[in-house]
């Protein structure tokens, strides 16, 4: 604090510093306040367009998924299903599918066989109830298929928007990339609210009711595997997949991050992921890493396996391999 004499002005009475209120100043002040309040209301006017139920007290009070009791979770699931019916016209078979004991999921993709037909990316979009109206919507697909030039694995010269009449093209090969369900997952490490975590079976999931939408996980992901709901998803009634679970493919609210969960609502119930089932060349091998007799264990033990961006240290549960 300065006690520089230059800065001392002569002391004044309180009345001199601020003039007492009289009728004139009071009216002026009142008029200014009215203008201020009107301005504030006008500024906030768009909030009137919020859909009813966009922000509810229940939502605000909801706890983190892992702190919910079974009854709480059941109540939330019913209210989510009802909301989906109100907004999208379908009452889904929404449930919480838990991980199985003794299971750790792994995925391997045969780069020799993949022909780049993108059937997997398409099936993924449908299975996971994503918007599919325009090109921007298609960016939401959890699977990006890259077209690479033969002779190297150079992502930088790859093209995810290839569009020839026929695939595969001469001199090219194809590499689908989706969430690698990393053992050392940078995305879960950076989340400030633990809205994303690794489950017991290795799947990295997001609690859409807890995510604050900061997108730090997207910045952390070395595989560009996470998507953000910049808008509210638009899915037509007849396009909705009603087989849904809380941590995977239920229709997401806007403003949260989502990602591939290896279709946990299918795989935890003994089915294959949608992308595996639809693959016409059998390039995709999915299974339990803990089972020594599974096909995935066979691939990892007997094929030439390649790990994408191994240098980043993520230790993925998603592998690429080659025939011969």
């Amino acid at each position, binding site marked *: 604090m300065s006690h520089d004499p*230059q800065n001392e002005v002569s002391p004044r009475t309180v009345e001199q510093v601020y003039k007492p209120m009289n009728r004139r100043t009071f009216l002026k002040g009142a008029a200014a306040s009215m203008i201020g309040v009107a301005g504030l209301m006008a500024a906030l006017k768009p909030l009137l*367009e919020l859909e009813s139920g966009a922000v509810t007290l229940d939502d605000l009070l909801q706890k983190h998924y892992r702190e919910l009791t079974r009854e709480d979770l059941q109540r939330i699931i019913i209210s989510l299903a009802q909301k989906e019916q109100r907004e999208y016209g379908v009452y889904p078979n929404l449930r919480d599918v838990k991980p199985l004991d003794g299971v750790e999921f792994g995925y391997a993709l045969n780069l020799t066989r993949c022909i780049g037909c993108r059937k997997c990316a398409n099936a993924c979009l449908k299975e996971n109830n994503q918007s599919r109206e325009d090109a921007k919507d298609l960016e939401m697909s959890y699977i990006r298929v890259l077209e690479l030039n033969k002779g190297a694995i150079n992502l930088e010269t790859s093209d995810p928007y290839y569009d020839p009449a026929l695939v595969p093209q001469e001199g090219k090969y194809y590499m689908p990339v989706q969430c690698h369900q990393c053992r050392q997952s*940078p995305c879960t490490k950076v989340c400030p609210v633990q809205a994303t975590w690794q489950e017991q079976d290795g799947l990295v999931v997001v609690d859409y009711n807890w995510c604050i939408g900061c997108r730090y996980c997207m910045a952390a992901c070395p595989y560009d595997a996470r998507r953000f709901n910049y808008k509210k998803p638009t899915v037509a009634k007849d396009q909705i997949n009603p087989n849904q679970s809380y941590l995977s493919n239920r229709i997401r609210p806007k403003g949260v991050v989502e990602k591939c969960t290896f279709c946990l609502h299918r795989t935890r119930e003994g089915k294959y992921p949608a992308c595996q089932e639809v693959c016409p060349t059998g390039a995709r091998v999915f299974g339990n890493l803990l089972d020594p007799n599974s096909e995935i264990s066979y691939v990892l033990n007997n094929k030439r396996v390649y790990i994408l961006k191994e240098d980043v240290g993520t230790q993925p549960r998603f592998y690429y391999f080659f025939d011969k």
Partner: protein
Amino acid sequence: MRDYVTFLFRAWRLSFQGSARYYAWMSVLTLISLLGLHAWARQFVDGLQTTGMTNQVSWGAYIANFTFLVGVAAAAVMLVIPAYIYKKEHMHEVVLFGELIAIAVIVMCLLFVTVDLGHPERFHHMIPPFGVFNFPGSILSWDVIVLNGYLMLNLHIAGYLLYCRYHHRQPTRLFYIPFVFLSIVWAVSIHTVTAFLYVGLAGRGYWHHPLVPSRFLASAFVAGPALMIVTFQIIRRTTRYFICDEPIFTLRMIMTVAMIINMFLLGCELFTEFYYPTAHAAAAHYLFFGLHGHAGLVPWIWAAVSLNTLGLAFLMTPVSRHITGLNVACVACFIGIWTEKGMGLIIPGFVPTPLGQVVEYLPTLNETMVCLGIWAFGALLFSWMLHVAIPIMNGSLRAKPDLSAATQ
């Protein structure tokens, strides 16, 4: 306690009294803030599709401004260190302004983070015991702690000193000196932690670089003092508070040294990226020369480099011994660093994507309005704090004015 309520009431009344110029300035800032609030309300309803961000470039102008401003807030330490460690008397008359700038700027930082959220109404998920705080794992949690801590420290120091002055009594050293020293360390920590937000991401080659925190601090100690030099001149012209030239020229020296270090580190970075071209240099290539025909940031970064070079040239030569030359240098450095450290740092982190895609980013009008609104709000907050603080600092607002002195 009653005294304190009276004090608050007086401060409140004082806020609405001023010259026509004061009213005009505050009205314009309020108007821009409200326009920004309107744009944000639109974004809250429609979602972040109102911004230019995409799945590929998932952070944009908000986080860019946030990053830059954390540096400006940290730079208040460049007034505190000379004043309290080197006991430079002339710095004591301005150190409070540095703390007030820090308060206003930290509030802006918090606003920039809030508007970036997809679900701002879930902000309490970060605050224990309501939420689940991912500490110490997430650097963002660290950032929440250090930013709010810095805000509290500065509110306490500035508030306590002003209140003592209002009561015309000597502040008790024990009540503020320990906090002043803590704030020095803390200021460095806010910007280091903010740098670690990016450096910690191993998948983003452009950010995963040990020079980033050092460059952050160096550039912050240019941009912050640049803002202060200009602000001090405005204060001494428009208010009844005299600031002599010494603090301004002390800051000039600090700026010069910091800018030399900043430019040196830039040179180190450019050498590493371009001497031997690796795949990691793709982002720098995009930034400086464009990549695969996309060159959106090239004019930005060269504008920044030119402004910074101009600023440095002015600072290092006698030109900036004159106040006009110094002001040119300050404006050039401030805009240059805002450009380089904002968009110039954040966007290349996402371009190309980890899978090699080049998707360019351009803020939308709505997004720009939100940013302008926050800048205007910060200026509004700072102007208001000055308007209340200056009558206290120059002695015209006292709890019990000694009127006998006035009549003599």
